């Protein structure tokens, strides 16, 4: 075999690994990276060095996510956006579950429950809010979040979310609203990829799990959420934002329980070990994500 055979094979394999980078970056600097990779390779090598390959793929994926280019402020902004999106999605699924329950009641009893209109209006407002968050309209999202909290509350015969089920969609919308207001202004470079949004949407659907146990705080499939959290931990070296968004999905039942305890102080017995575990996980995840973000943003 001639001595010039290994180089093209190695080059081809390095070019394959360089596909981890976004096309624009590859177009601008791909040849330069390849030049450095080839210069540093062992003479006669046909396969890329393992350490070099891992570093290349990790750096490429980070560039794809835009993590490398952002400051810590922009990173926080993107985490807040994604978290608000996840929480609103969660609230929407809960309300959709309630509508589903009302329609089944209608099928059985032939009569609609009086709160059906409130559920439909809430679902409509939450859908609009979700759309505004996806499109990045910050002011519209904030206005819709306010409306999503106030309008159904006014329509509620009791004037306030009076059951755990009600407050379970109500509380995450309030948190989403706070995140939308508190996040630093300005859009982060690069945007959040569709894949990332889809992943968080899938975790949200699993967290709410309305087809598994509609309307039950204790019946939520915590297991699926823990799996999603584990996956987001595995991907944290590339992008720590999903850890924050998935961890926030542990919160709604805790917020709903806290709201109920405030309304009915005698009901403190609802604070079981699962709530403590959820809170502990949220705090741990936020600490972990903050630590990774700081490391990624470090000069």
């Amino acid at each position: 075999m001639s001595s010039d055979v290994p180089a093209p094979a190695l080059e081809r394999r390095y070019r394959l690994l360089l596909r981890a980078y976004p096309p624009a970056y590859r177009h601008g600097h791909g040849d330069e990276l390849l030049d450095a990779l080839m210069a540093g390779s062992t003479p006669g090598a046909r396969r890329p060095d393992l350490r070099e390959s891992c570093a290349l793929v990790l750096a490429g994926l980070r560039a794809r996510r835009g993590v490398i280019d952002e400051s810590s402020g922009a990173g926080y902004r993107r985490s807040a956006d994604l978290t608000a999106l996840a929480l609103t999605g969660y609230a929407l699924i809960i309300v959709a579950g309630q509508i589903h329950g009302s329609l089944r009641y209608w099928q059985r009893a032939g009569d609609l429950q009086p709160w059906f209109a409130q559920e439909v209006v809430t679902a409509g407002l939450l859908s609009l809010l979700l759309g505004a968050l996806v499109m990045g309209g910050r002011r519209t999202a904030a206005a819709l979040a306010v409306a999503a909290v106030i309008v159904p509350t006014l329509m509620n015969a009791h004037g306030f979310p009076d059951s755990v089920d009600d407050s379970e969609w109500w509380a995450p919308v309030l948190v989403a609203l706070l995140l939308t207001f508190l996040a630093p202004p300005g859009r982060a470079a690069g945007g959040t990829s569709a894949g990332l949004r889809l992943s968080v949407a899938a975790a949200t659907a699993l967290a709410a799990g309305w087809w598994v146990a509609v309307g039950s705080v204790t019946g939520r499939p915590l297991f699926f959420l823990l799996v999603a959290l584990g996956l987001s931990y595995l991907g944290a070296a590339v992008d720590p934002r999903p850890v924050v968004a998935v961890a926030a999905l542990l919160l709604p039942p805790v917020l709903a329980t806290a709201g109920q305890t405030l309304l009915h102080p005698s009901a403190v017995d609802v604070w079981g070990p699962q709530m403590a575990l959820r809170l502990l996980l949220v705090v741990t995840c936020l600490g972990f994500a903050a630590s990774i973000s700081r490391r990624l943003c470090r000069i």
Partner: protein
Amino acid sequence: MSQSSRAPMSEPSYFVLAALMNGPLHGYAIIKAALDLSGGRFTLAVGTLYSVLDRLAREEYVTVAGEEIVNGRARRYFALTDAGRSALQYEADRMAQAARVVNLPATERIGVNPA
């Protein structure tokens, strides 16, 4: 950013800036210089190097000093800016000060009272 509030620099950034002290270098030359400066201890991966260079360029610690075509591929040369030199010097001073705490004779260490 004030000198006192500057966060400690990562090791890759430190060695990349140090490699550029003597003049502009291209990517692979930076890796070799960093390896030499660290006494063979610190090997920069190419992916890591370009991530670090992108970040340092964003902070205006390095700048592209020129470009040439070698073997049909573009090769950029990176140079240290004044801000980069100042950040590197600050980091070197910080580490020297930290090392001094350990290297001082026991009797000269403030707050240490050998039993």
